[in-house]
């Protein structure tokens, strides 16, 4: 019978991870810092000549043009790649990888570069393989709702395309204007609609990939059901570019709802917020499509840095609820009943409702732009944690108490309906002492509830060594075996996702 915390006592690998934090092995390097450069070859003039032959005009070596792809969206990590390749077809990707594999050149696949764990930019001089020019929609079946497109399609563009045809993408996130579907799949992005439409593991029907040796793996099925052998695509969804480069995706899209309502509510306590969630699930049920929260600190940052006003009165907690359904009258009635109940039972102290597009966008931006507001508050330490829903805010409260006034702001927000907390701590500038206070405290707290130290952001560079807080060492070892089988030379997105101690 398992007891809480059994992992900490019995797992030697986890114990050594903790030692890393404590610096007990003499190293002062944080587990999230980059490891030593692996012995890949460096790019030569002959290599550039080859790339220029297959990608004329799309082999970028101008440092000014390469630089944006060397830095992540948070401006927290910077690589020193000198080559940016921009293929347009799967065939070109295949030729690039085949060549790089034979030459032992490391490759960093890159989509919209909106990742938050340093997984999308080079650590050293890895060649950046951008999918930005692979932005064609290949097919849309309006009866089944299956969309097939290249990996470089920007999520928002796919949404616009589908909306004209009365469909929507099954996922939506704040980065939609820049992120690409290939990257979304590679990171198994969650987002604001997961509560209703599920994860990409369910909605992606097929993938086309190029493996490390250049082999094209065509699993681009558009079938809803296909139990013929092992479902290989599941391995690549969430593999963060370390097992293969996704070049095309087929995804099952839901119909565009005829009626969308967004409600912005204020609660006095987190307990009331959770009760509101219960009430919501009961009374809104099948029309509920999102349940997000933000705390008053988030509202303060939105007011201060982005000049977004609070649409209701000041409350400790705010909820964004979205309903999506096929009948406006029916949904309005259900919503009205829910709101009346929530108000009369005092679960909710204030709120507002939006049915018009412009107002809906305005209310959603209060949740979607918190990440942006944080970037204006200082250097941000970001944590994306899965916890049992009732414990979510306790971590924020404990962290505030633990840090005292060492931190500038400590905020909590996120997909509370999915049990996913975004905990962010800001300081005026990078502060190793603050980091040492936050980690491993946050990871140990998470592990003690058997939570995930990365709910949806992935591991990338920054969190690769913390994997043992949420996965057993045998599981991680098996991951290593799979990686070695699919990418023996380790050229695909090195230094990411899997922990350093696997490389022995």
């Amino acid at each position, binding site marked *: 019978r398992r007891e809480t915390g059994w992992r900490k006592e019995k797992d030697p690998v986890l114990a050594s991870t903790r030692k890393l934090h404590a610096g007990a092995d003499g190293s002062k390097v944080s587990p999230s810092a980059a490891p030593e450069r692996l012995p890949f070859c460096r790019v030569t003039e002959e290599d550039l000549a080859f790339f220029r032959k297959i990608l004329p*005009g799309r082999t970028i070596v101008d440092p000014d043009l390469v630089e944006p792809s060397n830095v992540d969206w948070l401006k927290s990590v910077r690589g020193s790649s000198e080559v940016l390749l921009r293929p347009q077809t799967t065939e070109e990707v295949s030729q690039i990888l085949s060549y790089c594999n034979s030459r032992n050149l490391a490759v960093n696949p890159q989509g919209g570069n909106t990742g938050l764990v340093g997984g999308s930019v080079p650590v050293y001089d890895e060649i950046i393989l951008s999918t930005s020019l692979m932005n064609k929609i290949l097919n849309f079946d309006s009866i089944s709702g299956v969309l097939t497109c290249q990996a470089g399609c920007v999520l928002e563009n796919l949404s616009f395309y589908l909306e*004209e045809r009365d469909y929507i993408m099954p996922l939506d996130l704040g980065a939609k204007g820049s992120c690409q579907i290939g990257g979304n799949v590679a990171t198994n992005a969650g987002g604001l609609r997961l509560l209703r439409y599920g994860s990409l593991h369910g909605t992606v029907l097929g993938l086309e990939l190029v493996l490390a040796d250049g082999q094209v793996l065509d699993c681009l099925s558009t079938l809803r059901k296909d139990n013929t052998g092992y479902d290989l695509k599941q391995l690549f969804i969430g593999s963060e570019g370390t097992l293969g480069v996704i070049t095309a995706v087929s995804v099952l899209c839901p119909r565009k709802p*005829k009626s969308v309502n967004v409600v*912005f*509510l204020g609660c006095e306590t987190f307990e009331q917020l959770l009760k509101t969630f219960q009430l919501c699930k009961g009374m809104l049920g099948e029309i509920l499509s999102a349940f997000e929260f933000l705390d008053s600190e988030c509202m303060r940052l939105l007011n201060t840095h982005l000049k977004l*006003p609070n*649409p*209701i*009165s000041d409350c400790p907690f705010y909820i964004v609820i979205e309903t999506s359904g096929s009948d406006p009258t029916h949904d309005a009635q259900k919503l009205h009943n829910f*709101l*009346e109940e929530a*108000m009369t039972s005092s679960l*909710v102290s*204030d*709120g*507002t*409702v*939006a*049915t*018009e*597009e*412009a*107002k809906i*966008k305005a209310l959603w931006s209060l949740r979607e732009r918190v990440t942006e507001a944080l970037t204006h508050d200082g250097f941000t330490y970001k944590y994306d944690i899965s916890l049992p829903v009732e414990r979510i805010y306790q971590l924020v409260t404990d962290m505030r108490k633990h840090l005292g006034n060492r931190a500038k702001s400590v905020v909590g927000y996120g997909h509370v309906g999915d049990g996913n907390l975004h905990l962010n701590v800001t300081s005026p500038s990078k502060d190793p002492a603050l980091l040492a206070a936050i980690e491993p405290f946050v990871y140990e707290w998470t592990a003690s509830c058997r939570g995930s130290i990365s709910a949806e952001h992935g591991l990338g560079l920054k969190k690769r060594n913390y994997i043992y807080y949420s996965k057993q060492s045998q599981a991680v070892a098996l991951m290593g075996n799979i990686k070695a089988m699919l990418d023996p030379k380790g050229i695909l997105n090195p230094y990411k996702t899997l922990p350093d101690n696997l490389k022995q």
Partner: protein
Amino acid sequence: MSGRVLVGVKRVIDYAVKIRVKPDNTGVVTDGVKHSMNPFCEIAVEEAVKLKEKKLIKEVVAVSCGPQQSQETIRTALAMGADRGIHVDVSGKDYENLGPLQVSKILAALAKQEDAQLILLGKQAIDDDCNQTGQMTAALLDWPQGTFASEVSLEGDKINLVREIDGGLEHIKINTPAVITADLRLNTPRYATLPNIMKAKKKKIATVKPADLGVDVTSRLEVLKVEEPPQRQAGMKVETVEDLVVKLKEAGRV
């Protein structure tokens, strides 16, 4: 003075919706399309509610001319703080042909019936962009008008107004009763909060027909055709300055 303000609110296609022309070119598609309150009417409602909160006026009456669904628009005004509503029921062909002249006749009749001190309207509707109703209403009532208002303040029985005009800002003072039309920068409309949304459900909306007000809604205008604007041609990307010069020469631009 009655202290009563009439606010006109029009139900229009939501401004975020992509407009489609009907295949027979007689108009735009409205069936199943998201509608909402005209943004300038929202600003007018906000101004009226603000005046009431400052205790400068006593009652805000929201008026809308249209089919049954116009009552939703009135409800939104009630949720923002209007006290009661009047729905002037116009539907079918009459509604399709309803324009500023008929609406201003209706508003003038209602102003007399309700003994209104002030009529607040949006400067124009985002569907027809006419910008005529406020002006026509003032003319029919022989009242002063303050159009494109970006600032309004009441001073006794006069109104100080700042108008946004092409040359800048114009400051005028007009007598009451008067018609004011709201421009974009007059205020930022509030969100209707839940307690007010709940209260609004109990507020009264009276229904009348144009004939009850002695107004004939026959239109003097006939729409001949509605078409989409010409499609914008895609641009072209070039790699070098030399390419650009070649392309410009080909297009006869240099």
